[in-house]
């Protein structure tokens, strides 16, 4: 059997995935996305956060043709199908890089550090890269 129609652990925890790395230079961003896609099957309370260089993962217009790596910025668009709906970007990180929400490949909720910090503090499991 390939699937997990009822993964159904009764425990529901708050899982937060914190992306703090730019794509391509290292594998961290890509492998973090891999975890998120798998974790989505477990019916947990999942949120995904982009802070620091992690916001570069979502930059529109990525074209990896000439570096030979997979353009996984397209995959963030599938998060909705994976029922991952809480996607936060830190305002300070975005602004520091001269970006706005319009520069990103998917719709996100932009939060100031103060609000984001409050949400972070409520998590049970925080996995970052």
């Amino acid at each position: 059997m390939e699937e997990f129609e009822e993964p159904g652990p009764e425990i529901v925890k708050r899982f937060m995935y914190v992306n703090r790395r730019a794509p391509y230079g290292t594998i961290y961003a890509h492998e973090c996305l891999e975890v998120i896609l798998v974790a989505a099957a477990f019916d947990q309370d999942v949120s995904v956060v982009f802070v620091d260089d992690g916001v570069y993962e979502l930059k529109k217009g990525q074209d990896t043709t000439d570096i030979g790596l997979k353009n996984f910025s397209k995959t963030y668009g599938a998060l909705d199908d994976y029922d991952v709906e809480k996607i936060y970007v830190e305002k300070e990180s975005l602004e520091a890089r001269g970006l706005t929400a319009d520069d990103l490949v998917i719709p996100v909720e932009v939060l100031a550090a103060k609000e984001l910090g409050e949400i972070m503090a409520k998590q049970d499991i925080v996995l970052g890269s």
Partner: protein
Amino acid sequence: MKIGILINEGPFTHQASDSAYRFTVAALAKGHEIYRVFFYKDGVNNANKLSEPQTDDRNLVSLWSELGQENDIDLVVCVAAALRRGIKDEIVKEGFRISGLGQLVEAGIQADRLVVFGD
């Protein structure tokens, strides 16, 4: 208390696996249960039995293997990360097993704490 451990780096480039090992030993000494140690990213290299450090260097592959077997710890190597790096069943040290990323998420759900070591 049940503690899960995630290791994202191999035994040589970063201190992560050493820190995780010392943390695990200390946790066991304090009577905690190590629910699972999950090896992801370059962390899968911790399971490579072909690794041969110099004799005056610590051998983390063996140390993890022994610690795991003596204390019945579930040492899980991520299959996706492992295949990418050529870590297959044939070269996985005793005491480790290869399984899916779901085992990491499951550890996060079942353990009381999950501690991440990496770079």
